[in-house]
């Protein structure tokens, strides 16, 4: 039985982050270098930087609480997949008509 840490799923995320920074730098360079020197340009840059920092901070706060050292074993993975049924209609509790004021 093979086992790998859950942290491996973060590898594509970090690769994407590298691309994200490269593309962001290119975009900002184009904007600063070729854009008209108006307040609007600096507002756009400020909004983008603020949005990026918010998203990165949010990503950190979202991902940090998980236990990324947890091992993924083939059996655990298969079990978790078989438990999932996206097309299953949930069994909702029956409404009690006597207590329901909205019932006609």
């Amino acid at each position: 039985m093979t086992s790998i840490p859950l942290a491996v799923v973060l590898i594509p995320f970090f690769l994407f982050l590298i691309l994200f920074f490269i593309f962001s730098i290119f975009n900002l360079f184009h904007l600063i270098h070729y854009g008209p020197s108006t307040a609007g340009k600096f507002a756009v840059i400020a909004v983008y930087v603020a949005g990026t920092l918010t998203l990165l901070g949010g990503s950190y706060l979202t991902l940090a609480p998980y236990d990324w050292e947890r091992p993924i074993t083939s059996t655990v993975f298969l079990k978790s997949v078989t438990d999932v049924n996206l097309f299953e209609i949930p069994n909702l509790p029956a409404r009690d008509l006597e207590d329901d004021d909205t019932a006609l």
Partner: protein
Amino acid sequence: MKYLLSNPQPGERVVMILRRFWFTALWIVLTAVILFLLPVGVYALLLNFSPSLLDDSLITPALAMTACLYYLAVWLFAFTDFVDYYLDTWIITTGRIINVEQHGLFRRTASELNLSSIQDATSEISGPLQTFFKYGNVFVQTAAERERFHLKDIPHAEEVKETIMHLSEEDRMREQRGGKT
């Protein structure tokens, strides 16, 4: 807005600086907002139809990571699209049209054509949005077998076309007068 021409001709002055209509940017923002709200809908569906998936100690972190990646990607692509919109500029002077266009991230075109060489200008306003907000495209064609200039999504397209034709005529007459003297 003042614009300094990099290589001004004698007596040349800037008549118009055109940018794409703001409504184009609004589309980019709206698309980004819709894409940002999409995972909320997916989350609600999962919560109703497969809550066990959200309790799974392996799938939940993977889903959270996918959501973070998705939001960053939408943000980046929306900004790239916005930069593409923001850097498209057309400058009409008394002697020429200067076309500066950003195509994606790694391609930028800057070209110009003399007003006297213009043969035909066409304005195109199509669809209810363009008709209502009075913006559209202007195509400028020269005698040479080259790609025609395309002024995309500019406000008051018809007036711009008229101005270009008027300036072109003036430039042609000026050249003729200059030739005679």
